């Protein structure tokens, strides 16, 4: 069995660091739709790609979270990126590969990947 002492060691390490992740308004939120429709369409690898990618690249002030059905089931997996002071960006029919691109170009580079957004589908 994995020991709980390891967890105590993490606490001791972390408590010395002042900058614990805060979920305040300066945070960019990446929201993955994880209702039945999203899960059935393949939201799990997308959510995985975002959480792992953000963690691996050590990106700060970005929070990956999940939500229910937003009523656009035919476009699932849907990912919304909400950055403070900016318009919400809705990416549709996401995959783990597209997620990696979004992290690279949008989250890090600041450039919206319009080819994957909902606007590209309804025009």
């Amino acid at each position: 069995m994995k020991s709980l002492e390891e967890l105590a060691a993490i606490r001791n390490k972390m408590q010395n660091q002042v900058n614990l992740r805060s979920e305040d308004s300066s945070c960019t939120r990446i929201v993955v739709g994880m209702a039945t429709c999203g899960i059935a369409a393949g939201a799990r690898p997308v959510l995985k790609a975002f959480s792992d990618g953000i963690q691996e690249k050590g990106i700060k002030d970005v929070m990956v979270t999940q939500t229910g059905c937003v009523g656009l089931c035919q476009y699932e997996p849907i990912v919304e990126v909400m950055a403070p002071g900016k318009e919400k960006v809705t990416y549709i029919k996401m995959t783990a590969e597209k997620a990696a691109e979004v992290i690279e170009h949008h989250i890090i580079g600041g450039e919206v990947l319009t080819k994957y957004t909902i606007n590209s589908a309804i025009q």
Partner: protein
Amino acid sequence: MLPEIALSILDIAQNSVRADASLIEITVKINTAADLLSVVINDDGCGMDEQQVKNVVDPFFTTRKTRKIGLGVPFFKMSAESTGGSFEISSEKGVGTRVRADYVLSSIDRMPLGDMTFTVHSLITLNTDIDFLYNYSVDGNGYTLDTRQFRQILGGVPLNTPDVSDYIKEYLDENTAEINQGRAF
């Protein structure tokens, strides 16, 4: 239907999240002698009245008004019943909801349990204001992950801190592997 029991559990647990639960208990119990895989999801959320409980198992009742329920419960019910197992949902307004699905372990129609580590890990790290109690056992040997205990050890360090998040993932993977002893369910 969803291709893994773990995905159904993730889906059903979202209902508990949206029901404003403060504690969600997920139990996966495998009994090879009884040829049974039993899943229980129990929450202390807002609950439903008798009529709502009847409606959630009916996929065709789903209207915009009840969209928060949708196909999740009917999928879960069907996946269990198609193996010759059973399904039960009970709820009380203001008290909570309990969903149980029993699968016949050896049935050819039983989906694989699937990636429970992802299900439990993502529920915990993405809903840090909720406590989770996960029990996994095979033939009486099992382990428990209780976020209330983890929080106590962690002091104020959040459960979604990268190091803690990794620890939770390893805790689930390693303990499950130890219980499974090379068997796959």
